[in-house]
Every structure is written in structure tokens, then in C-alpha cells.
């Protein structure tokens, strides 16, 4: 999934033979944009490594990922970990689907969640007793049939919705699809509660069952999800490097130029939208079968943001990025819900950020020493003035909690104190960005201490909310620092 476009001349030669260049690079602009990157690959072993990396084709990489996935299943016996692994594949699948619309053809599809929900509800209706038991109208299909029907139906719905929505351009399209997602939740909440279950959702769904095998345990679902993810990734890669894939990219770069090149812009857009819908619905059916029930709250804007976080973090436009993003976001989300892991993640991120951002090393030493000194001094002073103010216990369990006990200020009733600290933390972050020199270092020291106090007294008590705040912050920071994501490629934007 990396591409090495070589010389522009070589590019056009390959194209004139009618064979697409691997990775589907599209022209001189991109070659120029990447020349800096090639330069940055540097000399010596790094360059050799980068070249060797570029020579490996896409299918050995995919095979490697598959083997890693299978090996993982052999070593993990913990059911929770298996469920997390299933979820990360599910989000990888969702992110890959969203990538077709957002990454490749540049349609900001904010109603994607509706198709995920469509798939889940479709499976729930056809493969449960929702339509009654037996007789006329009592349809109860085998899992494999209902998956095929639902995915095909999602494609058709995608075409219809796409035909309407795509008469709008850019931002308008985004908001109409956002409304679509909202409308889906409203509809499943209110339309025909006897069939769709209303707020209570649908339950008692069939497990996946085909070719004489019934899929029940989390490990089985993990295998199924792994298989589906690998197949979808392969299909999408072939699609990406096909004529259609290149047309999508051209469309994303400049719709007017693409149209001038006789591409049928609307057809391509509807196609991308509909393909995204199908992948979303497929993920939905898996989700429903694994969860055994579906609720309207499974398909709210929060989940949409999670999917976007996966895609954006991994890098918009890259299949490997979508898979990596799904893995990172799900694992991070899961870690945040356990206090010990969350503490590791939180303090680990602070330390990594310090090491990556604070230069020279001398300053780093000052900061670390400053934080420790400032923390213990503040704790001692506050403890001497008002013992009540340090009477509480840090929220982190284990050794982190005992280390923090003499360091952070946690009063007896930490809620309001923690809220105030949270606001102070935001002010501190703003100060860090605005200040320079020695003042910035001081701001960093105080902010880290405030962050630690706030974490121990307030944030860790509400892991769900903390997770969401951190996800939102990740989206903002990633966009500001690296708009193309971890594995995304810089593209020349034509204006």
C-alpha cells in the first residue's frame, strides 16, 4: 500500500501500456509533492530499508497481517481481549468503508452511521423473530441469506440516497448526510415499535450460521471478522488500483478537471457512496450477530465520531491506515475504561509528548525536575495549611496511586475541585501554546501538575466521559498537526 512512483517519465510509460502503476499515482503534481518525502528518506540503512519496504507488494503485507491476526488468536485466551479484538476489526472494517467515500472520492459522508445501523437492523429483522414466527409474513431467514440481502439492499439505498444528496456539493452534502444519520435514529425509535422495537431495540438474534458451522464464542467471531476484514481489504485494494479507483482520486483532486476529462462525475460519486454504504452495512450485520441485539443508541453520532477518529488517525485515503486506526482507537478506548490501564495511557502520553516536543534535553531535565519539585512542594504547603484539602485518595489504583498519593492534591470531596482543575487545565494548555521561552517551560510544569491532579481527582472517576473528551481532542490535534494522518500521504491540493 505504499507506492514508489519513480520518475514521471516512467509513470507515463507504464500508463501508456495500459497498466496501472502500483498504488495508482496520478501525475506530475503528486510526484513533485512527494519529492521532498523521497529526499527525507535519507541515506544509508534507512534508505535501503525504505526501498526494500517499497518493493514488497500489497498481498504479502496483507498475508502478514492475516498471519499476525491468526497468531494473536492462538495466544490470547482471555474472552475480553478477544471481544476487543473483534471490535477493533469491526471498526477497521467501518473505517475502510468510510474511506471509500471520504478518503478516495472526497465526499464527507456524515450519514455513514445510518448504513451501519441499516445493516444491523436489517440483520436483526430478517434473522430473528421480529417479523413473527412462521406463516405468512413471518420471515426468518438463515444468517447468510439475510446478510446478502441486507448488503445488497444497502447498496440500492446508497444509490437512491446518493442520487438525491449528490446534487449538492461539498459542505451541503456533509450536512444533509449528517441529518440522514439523525433521521435514522429518529426513525428506528419511532416508526412501528412493534416491529422495530422502539427504544427497547431488538434482541434474540440468530448467531451467524452457515455451512453447518454456528459461530458463537468471541473467538469464533474474531475469526469471522478477520476473514471478512482481509477479504474486504483485498477487494478494496484492487478497487483502489483499478480504473475506477484512479477516477475517484481524480474526482477528489479536482471535480471540474475530472469532468472535463469526460469522467461521469455523478456516477462515480454515487458509486463511491453506495460502496461505502455496503461495507458499512456488512459491518452492521456482523455487529448485530455478535451482539445478539440492536438498540437505537448503538448508532448515534458518538459512534460516527469514533469511526472518523479511526480513519483520521490512520490516515485518510489509506487502507492500512484505516485498519491501524481501528486497532489504535479501539484499544485506546478499551484501555481508558480500566483505571489502571487508563493511568498508564495518560501518564505515558504525557511522557511521550514531553520527550517528543521538549528540546534541548537540558530543558526536559528542568521540566521533569520542576514538576516533581513543584508537586511535592505544593502538596506539602497545601497539606500544612489545610489538611482537608489533601485528605482524598488518588483515583488510580496500584502503585501509580501510591506514588501519586504524596504528590497530587485530592481533597475529601473532589468533584468541584476537579471541575475547577479541568478548566485550569484548558487555560494551561492555551498558555503553553501562546507563551515562549522560560515562561513556556513554567507553564508546562504547572500544567502537567494540574493535569495530574485533575486526572486523579476527576477524570479517572468518569472513564466514559474522559474517553470521549480525549477522542475529540485527538481529532482536533491530529487535524492540526498531521492533516493526512499517520499513514496518509501528502497530496497537492488544487484550488
Amino acid at each position, binding site marked *: 500500500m505504499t507506492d514508489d512512483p519513480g520518475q514521471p517519465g516512467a509513470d507515463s510509460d507504464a500508463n501508456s501500456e495500459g497498466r496501472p502503476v502500483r498504488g495508482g499515482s496520478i501525475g506530475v503534481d503528486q510526484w513533485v509533492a512527494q519529492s521532498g518525502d523521497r529526499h527525507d528518506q535519507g541515506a544509508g540503512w534507512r534508505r535501503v530499508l525504505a526501498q526494500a519496504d517499497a518493493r514488497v507488494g500489497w498481498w504479502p503485507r496483507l498475508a502478514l497481517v492475516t498471519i499476525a491476526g491468526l497468531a494473536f488468536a492462538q495466544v490470547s485466551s482471555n474472552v475480553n481481549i478477544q471481544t476487543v479484538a473483534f471490535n477493533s476489526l469491526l471498526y477497521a472494517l467501518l473505517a475502510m468503508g468510510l474511506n471509500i467515500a471520504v478518503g478516495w472520492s472526497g465526499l464527507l459522508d456524515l450519514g455513514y452511521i445510518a448504513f451501519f445501523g441499516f445493516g444491523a437492523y436489517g440483520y436483526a429483522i430478517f434473522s430473528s423473530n421480529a417479523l413473527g414466527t412462521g406463516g405468512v409474513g413471518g420471515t426468518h431467514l438463515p444468517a447468510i441469506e439475510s446478510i446478502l440481502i441486507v448488503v445488497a439492499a444497502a447498496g440500492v439505498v446508497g444509490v437512491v440516497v446518493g442520487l438525491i444528496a449528490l446534487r449538492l456539493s461539498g459542505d451541503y452534502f456533509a450536512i444533509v448526510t449528517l*441529518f440522514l444519520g439523525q433521521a435514522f435514529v429518529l426513525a428506528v425509535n419511532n416508526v412501528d415499535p412493534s416491529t422495530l422495537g422502539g427504544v427497547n431495540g431488538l434482541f434474540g438474534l440468530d448467531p451467524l450460521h452457515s455451512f453447518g458451522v454456528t459461530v458463537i464464542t468471541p473467538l469464533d467471531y474474531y475469526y469471522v471478522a478477520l476473514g471478512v476484514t482481509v477479504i474486504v481489504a483485498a477487494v478494496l485494494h484492487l478497487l483502489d488500483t483499478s480504473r475506477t479507483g484512479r477516477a475517484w482520486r481524480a474526482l477528489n483532486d479536482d471535480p471540474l478537471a475530472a469532468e472535463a476529462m469526460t469522467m461521469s462525475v455523478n456516477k462515480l460519486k454515487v458509486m463511491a457512496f453506495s460502496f461505502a454504504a455496503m461495507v458499512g452495512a456488512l459491518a452492521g450485520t456482523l455487529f448485530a450477530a455478535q451482539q445478539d441485539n440492536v438498540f437505537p443508541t448503538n448508532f448515534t453520532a*458518538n459512534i460516527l465520531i469514533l469511526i472518523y477518529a479511526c480513519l483520521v488517525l490512520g490516515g485518510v485515503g489509506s487502507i492500512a491506515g484505516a485498519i491501524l486506526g481501528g486497532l489504535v482507537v479501539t484499544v485506546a478506548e478499551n484501555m481508558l475504561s480500566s483505571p489502571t490501564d487508563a493511568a498508564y495511557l495518560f501518564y505515558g502520553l504525557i511522557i511521550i509528548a514531553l520527550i517528543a516536543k521538549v528540546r534541548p534535553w537540558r530543558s526536559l531535565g528542568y521540566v521533569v525536575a520542576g514538576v516533581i519539585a513543584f508537586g511535592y512542594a505544593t502538596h506539602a504547603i497545601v497539606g500544612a495549611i489545610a489538611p482537608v484539602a489533601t485528605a482524598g485518595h488518588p483515583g488510580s489504583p496500584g502503585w501509580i496511586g501510591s506514588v501519586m498519593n504524596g504528590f497530587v492534591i485530592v481533597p475529601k470531596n473532589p468533584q468541584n475541585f476537579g471541575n475547577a482543575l479541568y478548566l485550569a487545565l484548558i487555560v494551561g494548555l492555551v498558555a503553553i501554546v501562546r507563551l515562549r521561552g522560560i515562561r513556556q517551560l513554567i507553564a508546562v510544569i504547572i500544567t502537567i501538575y494540574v493535569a495530574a491532579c485533575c486526572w486523579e481527582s476527576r477524570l479517572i472517576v468518569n472513564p466514559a466521559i474522559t474517553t470521549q473528551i480525549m477522542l475529540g481532542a485527538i481529532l482536533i490535534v491530529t487535524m*492540526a498537526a498531521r492533516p493526512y494522518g499517520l499513514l496518509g500521504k501528502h497530496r497537492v491540493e488544487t484550488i
Partner: protein
Amino acid sequence: MQVFFQTFVNGLTAGCVYALIALGYTMVYGVLKLLNFAHGDVYMVGAYIGYVILQLFGGAHGLSIPVVLLLFFMFAGASVGCGYLGVAMERFAYRPLRNAPRIAPLITALGISFVLENTVLLLFGGFTRSYSTNAYIPFSTGLDFGGVRIDIVQILTIVGSIAMMFGLRELVNRTTLGKSMRAVASDREAAEMLGINVDRTIMLTFLIGSAMAGIAGVMSGLAFNQITNTIGFLAGLKAFTAAVVGGIGSIPGAMIGGIFIGLCEAYSASYISSEYSDLIVFGILIVTMLLRPQGLFGQRPLQKV
């Protein structure tokens, strides 16, 4: 007939709130060509700032200062707080993305909206907070036209927002700031070459738009009493619909669009079904976009090649 007119009054009140939010959408879109999805959440934050100020002065049932003073502090606090929130948003989240791909600021906006909603959830909890307006501005102090009631809060909302709309129009049409806003909206680079401080203009646009959203938040808190951390999302969507129906970028358009959406919503809730009123607003958006994408007052933009 009484129900009809009462619905009209209620719809007008809601519509004025939507219109105030829509004005912020429209201004930012006009200047930056950026859809600030997080704008609805600024409105929500405004409602919570008003609530905090109410609590600071003794709460609804033990008010320690005159009501007029309380209202002044509420509106002032919400407009200043939200104004600076908007400025901070622009400075730290959107400004680094001026030259990023089109999709980047939209994703950032999603992130901001998520952070704001959950921050309020963290600080105030998930349950509904109430302004309990009845305790300090009794519903009986209002006008009564043969059974159709307009209470004082509704009058305040309607008159206040219409006054602000006219003030904004004068600002955009007459002042130097308004001129530079229009210049930046029509061509940012050219405006910069002519010596207009583009960054400052954009910052002030965010300041004014967000301050108005904050005021709208307090107004809706007073008029509809109940606030939660999720009110911003739907209100933002509806305000956006209002801005589109009126023609995005047009100030009278946003106002009339807002009132139109408010009325549609009120009538569909009282004559059809309250569950489906959101879907009906959505339908209006779709139909408007298909039949007249530039809205009622907008101009069809020229496509530059």
C-alpha cells in the same frame, strides 16, 4: 383558532432562537467558507453559562438581585464567555487549517463539538438542568390577546433577536469592520493585499457569531426552561437548515429562515406529531436544496476554475 395563534407565538420564539444561531453560521460561512458544526454547541455552552450565573446569584428561588440585573448579567456573561470560546476555537483549531484539505476543518469541528458536549457533561452531569423561569419572571406577567398568551420572556426573545439582527445588518453594511468582513468574504487574498487584517476580521467574525449563539442559549433557557448537554446538536442542525433555507451568507435570509423553521416545527408538532417534527425540518432542508440550492435570499456562487 386560539391554538393556531398560540402555536404561532411559540414557533416564533423558537424561530428567533434558531435565527440567532443561524446568523453565526452564516457569518462564519460567508467569511471563511467553513461550516462550523461546533456552533450549536457554543449555543449550548451559552445556556449553561446563563445557568451558572443564575446559581451564583442565589438560584431561581432565592434570587439576591433584581431580575433586570440578573438578565443583564446572564446575557453579558453568556455573550462574553461564548464570544471568547469562539475566538479560542478559531485561533487554536481552525487557523492552523486555513490551507489544509477541505475535509480537515469539518472533522476538527466534529471533534470540537464532541469535546464541548462531553466537557459540559463532565462538569454538570447528564441530567436536565432547569432555569425555573417561572419563579422570578412569572408567566402571568405577559400579554393576553383573547386566550393567546405572550409572556414577557417570549417578548424579550422576539424583540431582542430582531433588534440584534438589525444591529448586525447595520454593522455589516455601515462600519469599517463590516466592510472588511465583506471584503474578506468575497476574496481573502485580495483583501489581504489591500491591507485588511484578515486574521483580525475572521477573529471578530467568530467573536460576534459566537456571542450571538451564547445569547440565544440564554434566551432558549429562559423560554423553554430545560437545558441538557445535548441540546446543541439538534439546534445547530436546525439553525443550519435555517441558514440554508434563507440562503447561506445572507443575514436577512438567516433571520427569515430561522423563523420559518421555528414555525414549521411548531405547527408540525402541534398538528401532526411531535416525534416527526425533526424529520419534517429535515424534509424542508432536502426540498430547499433540491429546488433552490442558493436559498431564498442567496446568490448562486460563481464557480471559479
